[in-house]
C-alpha cells in the first residue's frame, strides 16, 4: 500500500523574509534579500554580496533559551526556527522540556550542504592550532556533526521517528523532501519535517569564490547581482537560510483535521554518473532528463500535466542547458513549455537550503494560484529567446495552477525533482 503524502505545514527563514506571510509578500513583490556584505570586501572576496536572512539574533532570543543557544550555530538556529514554525503552522504543539511525551510517528530529514563551518572556522581550527583543544568545551561536536541540524530539531520537538541529515550539495533540500515522502508512503512514519538549512559563513562561501563560480560583477548593485536566465548572468550569489515542510500521510492529516496546502504527487532522485557531459561540477543532461521523467512516472503524470517549473537556475552558464533539458524531458516545444521562474533571483543560491526554501515557494504558489516573477532577466539569454513567453518576469495570478515541478541539481552530478500538486480529495 502506498500512502498519499500531503504538505500540512511550512516554515521559512529566508534572506527576503521570515515566515510565510513575509516570504509570500516578498516573492510576489519581487523583494530581493541580497545585500552587500562589507566583511567580504575586507577579506578580498571577488563576490561581496550574499543572501542573508535579517534579524537572526533577535529571532533566536525569541525562539530559544540561553541554555539552548550555547550550542546552536547559524545553520542550526535557522533550521530550528523554520522547523518550529512548520510544526506550529501544521497545528501541532511544541512540547516543553518537562514533557516526557515523544512523538514516535514523527521524524525529521533536514539536510545541509556544507555544515557548521562558522563553528569550524571561528572556534575549532583556531583553538586546535593554538594547542587549546580543551577550550573547545562540550559544544563543538554537536554543532559540527553533519546531523547537528536535525538532531537539534528532534530535541526541541520530541521527535521519535527517523531523525537524520542528508547531504547532496545543492540538491540536498529537495532530496530531503523526497526521502521523507518515501518514508511516509511506506507507512514508516505519519509525519516528517523535511527540507534544508545552510548557515551564514565566509568559510562556506570562500571555496565557491575561489572557483570563480560566484558573481563578481555587481558588488555595488546587490539586488541586481543574482541574474538567472539573463544574458549578463555571471555566476551565482551565495545564499543562506532554511526552508522546511511538514509533510504527512493524507490519512493522518484528515484524521486530525489539518489544513492541506498541497500534495507531494511524486518525484525522483538520481545521479548522472559524471559521464555523457556530466562531471563533479556539471550535470549530465541525460541524467537530468531521466530524473524529470522518472518524477513524472512516479506521480503518474505526463509532461503535459506540468503547469509551472521552479528551476534550479542559479545564474551560471548552465541555465540555458537546464531549460532545454526541461523541454526535452517534458516533450514540449519552446512556446509550450510550462511557466518558468527562478526563486534564486531574489534570495541567491542557498546551497543545501535551496531546495527547502524553493519548495516552500512552490507550495505557496500551488496553494494560492500564482507564479512569482523572476527578476533580473530582462536581458534574456540569447539561447532562451524562444522560451521568452514562458519565463515569468512579473508575478502573475494563475488560478488553475495544478502541478509545479521543483528541481535541484548539485555538485557530484546529483539531481532531485519533486512534483507538488494542488490537493484534490479524490
Amino acid at each position, binding site marked *: 500500500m502506498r500512502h498519499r503524502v500531503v504538505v500540512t505545514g511550512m516554515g521559512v527563514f529566508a534572506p527576503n523574509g521570515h515566515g510565510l506571510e513575509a516570504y509570500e509578500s516578498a516573492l510576489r513583490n519581487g523583494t530581493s534579500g541580497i545585500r552587500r556584505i562589507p566583511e567580504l570586501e575586507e577579506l578580498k572576496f571577488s563576490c561581496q554580496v550574499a543572501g542573508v536572512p535579517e534579524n537572526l539574533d533577535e529571532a533566536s532570543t525569541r525562539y530559544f*533559551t*540561553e*541554555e539552548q543557544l*550555547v550550542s546552536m550555530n547559524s545553520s542550526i538556529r535557522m533550521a530550528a526556527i523554520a522547523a518550529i514554525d512548520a510544526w506550529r503552522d501544521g497545528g501541532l504543539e511544541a512540547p516543553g*522540556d518537562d514533557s516526557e511525551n515523544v512523538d514516535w510517528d514523527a521524524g525529521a530529514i533536514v539536510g545541509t550542504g556544507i555544515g557548521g563551518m562558522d563553528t569550524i572556522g571561528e572556534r575549532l581550527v583556531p583553538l586546535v592550532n593554538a594547542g587549546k583543544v*580543551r577550550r573547545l*568545551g*562540550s*559544544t563543538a561536536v554537536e554543532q559540527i556533526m553533519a546531523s547537528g541540524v536535525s538532531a537539534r530539531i528532534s530535541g526541541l520537538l520530541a521527535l521519535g521517528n527517523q531523525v537524520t541529515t542528508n547531504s547532496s550539495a545543492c540538491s540536498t533540500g529537495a532530496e530531503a523532501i523526497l526521502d521523507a515522502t518515501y518514508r511516509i508512503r511506506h507507512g514508516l512514519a505519519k509525519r516528517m519535517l523535511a527540507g534544508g538549512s545552510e548557515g551564514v559563513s565566509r568559510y562556506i562561501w570562500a571555496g565557491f569564490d575561489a572557483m570563480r563560480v560566484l558573481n563578481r560583477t555587481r558588488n555595488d548593485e546587490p539586488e541586481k547581482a543574482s541574474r538567472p536566465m539573463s544574458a549578463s548572468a555571471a555566476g551565482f550569489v551565495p545564499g543562506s537560510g532554511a526552508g522546511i515542510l511538514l509533510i504527512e500521510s493524507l490519512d493522518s492529516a484528515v484524521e486530525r483535521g489539518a489544513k492541506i496546502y498541497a500534495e507531494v504527487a511524486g518525484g525522483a532522485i538520481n545521479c548522472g554518473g559524471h559521464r555523457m557531459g556530466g562531471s563533479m561540477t556539471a550535470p549530465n543532461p541525460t541524467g537530468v532528463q531521466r530524473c524529470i521523467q522518472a518524477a513524472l512516472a512516479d506521480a503518474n503524470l505526463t509532461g503535459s500535466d506540468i503547469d509551472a517549473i521552479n528551476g534550479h537556475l542559479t545564474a551560471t552558464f548552465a541555465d540555458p542547458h537546464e531549460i532545454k533539458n526541461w523541454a526535452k524531458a517534458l516533450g514540449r516545444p519552446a512556446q509550450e513549455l510550462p511557466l518558468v521562474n527562478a526563486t534564486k533571483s531574489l534570495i541567491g543560491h542557498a546551497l543545501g537550503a535551496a531546495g527547502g526554501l524553493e519548495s516552500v515557494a512552490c507550495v505557496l504558489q500551488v496553494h494560492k494560484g500564482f507564479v512569482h516573477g523572476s527578476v533580473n532577466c530582462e536581458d534574456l539569454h540569447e539561447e532562451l529567446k524562444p522560451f521568452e513567453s514562458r519565463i515569468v518576469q512579473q508575478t502573475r495570478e494563475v488560478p488553475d495552477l495544478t502541478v509545479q515541478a521543483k528541481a535541484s541539481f548539485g555538485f557530484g552530478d546529483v539531481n532531485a525533482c519533486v512534483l507538488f500538486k494542488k490537493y484534490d480529495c479524490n
Partner: protein
Amino acid sequence: MSKEDVFSKVVDILGKYSKTEISADSITMETSILDDLKINSARLVDIVLDFEDAFDIEVDDDDADSVATVGDGVNLIMAKI
C-alpha cells in the same frame, strides 16, 4: 573575593546552562548541579571553563571531575583564588 561573591558568580554561570529558571534564593551549597538544576552532564566541561575565565584560575581534570554540587564549585574556586 568573599565566598558570598563567589557563590553569586557561580550561580550566574550555572544559570546559562540550566534547563529550568534558576532562582538564586532556592540554591544552596548542597544543590546538585545535574539533578536539581537540570544541567546536561556534558556541560560540566563548559562550566569549569567558565569558572577559569571568571576567576582567572586553572582547574585540572581531576578537580573538574569532583564538582557535583554548587558548594563543590565554590570551594574549588575559593581554594584557587
